[in-house]
């Protein structure tokens, strides 16, 4: 696109500041008492006409938010990114953690049929279909479906291929929604969620209405409309112009210029997206542990957070999942240029030029790479920023290069390890493959002893903090704008249960 985003944002925010200078500071607070009724219009970035309503195919944020409104999972992630029961009322593993008995809540689909154990098994069978490629497939792959069974209409017994203490994480996996048995046509989707389907225009809007029979209580809103605006400035303008009441995913620049205004309220969800650089530990130069430590020490994290995230975030400590369940609170790493210089000399890397691959695939990555390259000046190591194709970036950097920009949304720490840090992980971008680390993970997920599990997670994180391949420098806030009269917006991390959860939102 020929639009220069940075220049464009600069101009809009400049104008916005001028605009706001005229307004007083009589900010009206969000109405504090929940009320029923009204239609909330929520603007999200979309994927054009390629968007789908099939919850198992959900990929974009807007698809995740719509799926959540219309469907339920057995479990979902709470504010600390630990699994919380949803359609599952409770789960009980057997002693060796290979069979899990799940009791379903009394819930009904939008057409009045009850949610049964058979629907759960059919939904998971659809996701696990060998001929298809649904996103939740890898998370559910450990279910031994032929040996799983419906005990009665409201009880499912899952057989697992191996002991797995964190099975509820799999039930909460992205896209693991429960659909009615046999559902294949999602042009008029039927789920058990808080809102039921009214109409869909791909790339433009989806209209939903309140499901009065929702098991957790009917939503407050009468109607919920998702509209698509790909440009962040357009979402902001639509909100300011009163065309929508909720604008998803705004930039820190917008948040900063509108934080004190009375035309929109800014809602920040801390710890939503980790910002990092990934070093590949299986190849030169970062197969050298000293050089990895030197990079850890070169990063001026407060400066990165201040400049790249415009202050909307917190510094990271090279570990995933700050504030999440099992997070290891180790002493915060600080910049130490002298020690970094010493380590670079020790590694024989003085004068070395390292390419840092980056792209605009995620907001702020190019800026972070540029700032970090600047911070490495004078250390003896030169970092050269190389910008690649944004559409194939993640696949490219999984295979190629030695240092790349990285970011990730929220997921349980166990999932992060399983997907990215084991010998057999599918998206192991740092190429961290150590049998003793794999064994620690095995120990954590196959023991029913909670203390032993916590100890194993702490040990894994200690190793990663000392010599891992991820330089996780910060955690970005997820920023949402809303009209001041919108209440009930949660600040749970993006991708968790309470993010974009419109059944709890009201219009004051």
């Amino acid at each position, binding site marked *: 696109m020929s639009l220069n985003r940075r220049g464009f944002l600069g*101009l809009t925010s400049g104008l916005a500041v001028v*605009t706001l200078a005229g307004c007083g500071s009589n900010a009206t607070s969000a109405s504090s008492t929940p009320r029923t009724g009204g239609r909330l219009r929520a603007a999200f970035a979309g*994927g054009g006409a390629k968007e789908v309503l099939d919850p198992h195919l959900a990929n974009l944020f807007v698809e995740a938010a719509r799926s959540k409104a219309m469907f339920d999972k057995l479990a979902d992630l709470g504010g600390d990114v630990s699994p919380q029961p949803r359609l599952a009322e409770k789960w009980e593993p057997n002693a060796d953690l290979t069979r899990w008995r799940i009791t379903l809540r009394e819930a009904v689909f939008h057409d009045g049929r009850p949610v049964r154990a058979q629907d759960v098994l059919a939904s998971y069978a659809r996701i696990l279909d060998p001929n*298809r490629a649904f996103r939740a497939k890898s998370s559910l792959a450990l279910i031994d479906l032929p040996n799983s069974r419906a005990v009665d209409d409201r009880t499912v017994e899952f057989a697992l291929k191996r002991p797995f203490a964190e099975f509820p994480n799999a039930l909460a996996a992205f896209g693991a929604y429960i659909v009615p048995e046999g559902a294949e046509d999602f042009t008029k989707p039927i789920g058990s969620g808080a809102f039921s389907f009214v109409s869909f225009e791909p790339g433009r809007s989806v209209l939903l209405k309140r499901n009065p029979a929702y098991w957790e209580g009917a939503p407050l809103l009468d109607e919920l409309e998702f509209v*698509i605006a790909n440009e962040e400035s357009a979402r902001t303008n639509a909100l300011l112009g009163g065309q929508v009441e909720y604008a998803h995913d705004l930039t820190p620049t917008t948040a900063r210029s509108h934080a004190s205004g009375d035309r929109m309220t800014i809602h920040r969800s801390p710890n939503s997206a980790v910002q990092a650089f990934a070093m590949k530990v299986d190849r030169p130069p970062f197969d050298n542990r000293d050089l990895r430590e030197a990079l850890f020490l070169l990063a001026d994290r407060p400066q990165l957070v201040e400049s790249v995230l415009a202050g909307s975030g917190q510094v990271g400590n090279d570990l995933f999942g700050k504030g999440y369940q099992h997070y290891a609170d180790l002493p915060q790493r600080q910049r130490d240029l002298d020690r970094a210089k010493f380590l670079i000399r020790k590694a024989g890397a003085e004068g070395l030029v390292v390419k840092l691959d980056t792209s605009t695939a995620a907001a702020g990555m190019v800026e972070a790479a540029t700032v970090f390259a600047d911070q490495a000046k004078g250390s003896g190591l030169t970092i050269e920023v190389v910008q*690649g194709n944004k559409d194939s970036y993640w696949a490219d950097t999984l295979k190629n290069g030695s240092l790349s920009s990285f970011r990730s949304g929220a997921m349980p720490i166990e999932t992060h390890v399983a997907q990215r840090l084991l010998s057999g992980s599918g998206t192991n971008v740092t190429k961290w493959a150590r049998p003793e680390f794999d064994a620690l993970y095995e120990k954590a997920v196959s023991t029913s002893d909670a203390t032993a599990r916590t100890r194993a997670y702490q040990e894994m994180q200690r190793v990663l903090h000392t010599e891992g391949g991820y330089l996780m420098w910060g955690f970005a806030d997820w920023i949402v704008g809303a009209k001041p009269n919108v209440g009930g917006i949660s600040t749970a991390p993006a991708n968790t249960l309470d993010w974009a959860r419109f059944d709890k939102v009201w219009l004051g």
Partner: protein
Amino acid sequence: MSLASYAARRATLGLMQVLAVVTLVFFLVEALPGDAAVALAGDSPDPARIAQIRAAMGLDRPALERFADWLTGLPRLDFGESLVSGRPVAQFLSAGIGPTVVLAVLTLLLLLPISVLVGVLAALREGSLLDRALTSVSVALHSIPEFALAVVLIAVFGVQLGWLPPTAVGADVLAEPAVLVLPLVVLLARPICSISRLVRAGMVDALASDYVRHARRLGIGETWVRFAHALPNALAPAVQQVARTTDWLLGGVIVVEAVFVIPGLGTVLVDAVAARDLPVVQGLAVVFAVTTVAVNLLADLVGFRLAPRAEVVV
């Protein structure tokens, strides 16, 4: 050469041009890094999953075979199915064409009278204060890029004053015409200058020409001379520029669509290329190529009618 045989020859040539364009586009998109499977896998690029997506999409078949398949559907106007959503490509095209055509037609309906009027007025008062004022204003508008003008208009009229909706988000453009006002102003700003300048230059030339002088000597009224003799000749060069503008508008002006959230063809194209959704890109290539060929053919025919003595480039 008669008009009919000329049109037939041009249409045949156009068909070949369309085929050349779609072939070129297919192989250019193939040459882009990453395919639809890689784009869809996004930030979880597990190679095993990408291979599965590829198989599910049929991308594991050779490129030539897929292209041949797609081509054989073309005579039946079957554009195939989107790789990502599985919906027919024709649905994508019909969804995007609506807003784009509405915008293009409205722009042209306003553009033609305004720019001809401005050009003629400036030519008739050549060198006057009016001429210089019209020239300065239109050149000034022409020098502002679309996105900058759009941002300023939205900030002032959409957000600050609140007179007009700042975007067309979620709106049906025909049911709420107010959402089209700002995009129309942005789309008009530059073409008004380019076309009115051509009309003015053509009109100045025509008014100074031998045949106009001759018509005046014959005692024909000045109004008749100006508008029946000079104007049609003055318009001939502008017609080509109108054709180019029409083509630009029908291609979906991506910047305007993005800023004002109008889900036209430009937006469909950007989304389809980002997703490497080849059948959709191909379908759009056909639409754009046919539009370009047809608009230019039409412009040449109109030019042929307006000034029959002009040589037409074949």
